[in-house]
């Protein structure tokens, strides 16, 4: 069976070319400017102080059925470890290569076993699906307007950590919060290079496919805990819009 589709390609593109307008009605620069002109002034009306952005982020996440935990750099690991144990988590998947993962692993009581993602998924797929209770990730940043975690999975914290276990725990440093998606795309310069996979997460998995009744835990995590870590030095020192 051939997978050569070049003749379909030339027919499809040829027909489009024959009928494409001579020039777009707007230039890409004008379009970019009108998008910026739409979002930027609206942000100016909304609270820009980090503390208010954190409050908005928390409120949106809670409205989406996520649990939000506010903690300081010094206290979050012990606090979270205790909550995990209380929730009956026995097996926690985390990234032992990052500082946050190490701190959490060190704080865990004996009842909670820390596991790292040591092997490629195909070597332990069924085990991953059936035996891991929770996955811990550190978000790259967040979007206050929609209560959204921006997660960029990598070799140490693969995609399935935030997806397969029934509980996803995400840590976010408050200083990485953006006002909205438009601000994040610009500040983090997404157009200059995207990771293999970038995920925006705005609550636990859900569905309203049965009679418009929302049920949580459709296929992804049933529960999402978001730990917002604020610097001990005080939140007001951070620059609005800054990411890391």
């Amino acid at each position, binding site marked *: 069976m051939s997978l050569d589709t070049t003749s*379909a390609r030339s027919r*499809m593109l040829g027909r489009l070319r*024959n009928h494409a307008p001579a020039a777009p009605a707007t230039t890409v620069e004008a379009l970019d400017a009108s998008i910026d002109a739409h979002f930027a002034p609206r942000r100016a009306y909304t609270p820009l102080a980090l503390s208010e952005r954190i409050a908005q982020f928390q409120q949106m996440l809670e409205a989406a059925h996520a649990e939000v935990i506010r903690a300081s750099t010094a206290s979050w690991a012990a606090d979270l470890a205790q909550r995990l144990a209380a929730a009956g988590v026995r097996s926690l998947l985390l990234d032992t290569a990052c500082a946050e993962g190490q701190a959490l692993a060190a704080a865990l009581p004996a009842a909670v076993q820390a596991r790292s993602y040591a092997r490629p998924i195909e070597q332990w797929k069924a085990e991953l699906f059936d035996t891991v209770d929770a996955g811990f990730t550190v978000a790259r940043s967040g979007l206050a307007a929609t209560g959204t975690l921006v997660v960029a999975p990598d070799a140490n914290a693969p995609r399935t950590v935030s997806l397969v276990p029934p509980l996803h725990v995400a840590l976010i440093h408050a200083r990485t919060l953006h006002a909205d998606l438009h601000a994040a795309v610009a500040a983090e310069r997404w157009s200059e290079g995207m990771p293999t996979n970038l995920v925006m997460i705005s609550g636990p998995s859900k569905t309203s496919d049965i009679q418009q009744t929302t049920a949580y835990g459709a296929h992804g995590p049933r529960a999402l805990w978001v730990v917002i870590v604020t610097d001990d030095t005080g939140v007001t020192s951070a620059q609005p819009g800054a990411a890391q």
Partner: protein
Amino acid sequence: MNTNTSTTAIPQMPRAQGQENTLHFVPTEQFRQRARAALDDPQLRKSFRGAMDFLQGKRAAQFPEADELEALRDLGEAVRQHALARLPELLEQLETKLRANGIEVHWAETADEANHIVHAIARQHAATRVVKGKSMASEEIELNHYLAERGVDCIESDMGEYIVQLAGEKPSHIVMPAIHKTKGDIGHLFEEHIPDTPYTEDVDTLIQTGRRALRRAFVDAQIGLSGVNFAAADTGTLWLVENEGNGRLSTTVPDVHIAIMGMEKVVAKLEHIVPLSSLLTRSATGQPITTYFNLISSPRREGEKDGPRHVHLVLLDNGRGQAYADEQLRATLQCIRCGACMNHCPVYARIGGHAYGTTYPGPIGKIISPHLLGLDATAELPTASSLCGACGEVCPVRIPIPQLLVRLRTEANRDPEESVAHPLRGQGANHSRSEQFIWRFWSGAFAHPRAYRALRWAVTRLRGLAPSQQMGWTQHRTPLKPAPRSLHDLLRERDQPQ
């Protein structure tokens, strides 16, 4: 892959469903009969009325400021029109960028070609099991049926899609596929098809049953198949929007990911998706954002531990090129598939999605289906509208749906022999010589005073010949009869000096 290491009881997958019930489109020609049957089904009417009211309310709550909504719609329209104006160039750029990222790109001019491509990839990987995230493009090409005939099982993993697959049906809504079903229907369906499942109407229990039944499908499938909501040509990124997580699982856990995308969905830049994604989630389900935005830019890279090692994108034409060729009809391709037009359509609310007999029901279905299937198969659809304009008013990218409906009616009534700049497949499907004769006679009579006077004289004198049975009109009304004296005559009499 070992499937027996599971420690939890997983019910046997009811996999044979797609094969036993071959899911063919019902002939669209029978639209009137199906519409009538739907109108006579009180349960169906209730399901849709409730769902439409709910979705309309949710959408309205997301757009409290009219100014912001209108400004965002302007942006959405501008982004889509800009992309369509540069479509051939953007498709090439997307292809180049995706290939550089390691994603293979295939071009399919027809549904059959697209099916062939997916099957060929399945053969390359000796795959027999495909787990699917939601994809209307795959519904459009009837992929499940095609693959089932060739020994490849497709399992729908979106809860709504899974429900309609179990029932041997087609989606009745593009965003909420099982919108026509009650929780009681689904309770019985699960009891019948999923082992060890007692009947329940509790939605949480039903969803957990679905989750349990489908869990194994993600582990066992060699291929995950998905649709695409948006593609950015500048970064080579596929942007998928969902709530359940089945889309992420389908595009992450199996070793091969195949995405199928209508070729119109590419935009120039990643930033351009920002307004579109906001319009999509707020218009579709009234959410500020969905649970997951899943942005895929490459297969698993060296050192990464999950994600598919092979990613394919199938670019689908399947009649879209015909809409593109015509300047007015090109606006059809601005669509971002939010479903707001059907949620606000008085016709859709009353007859439901299945009556249309097409993959895309409702107003968007009426304007896109003639390009996908030809006007000969769909000529009645553009007439199933009162032209109330609700669809055009809510469309987040300002597609002038009512105007396009009128245009398609014109094309369906046009003489099949007439030569036009951009002929549509099936032109003249509704063409009637007697109707055309009547219109010619009418315009002739009204354009020539002498003929008009003669006609007036005849009509007022022969009014007794008006039939007493006038088809639908006399079902609930008294028959129409010309007046004994014309307005012209009455006015002349009044103005005559006594």
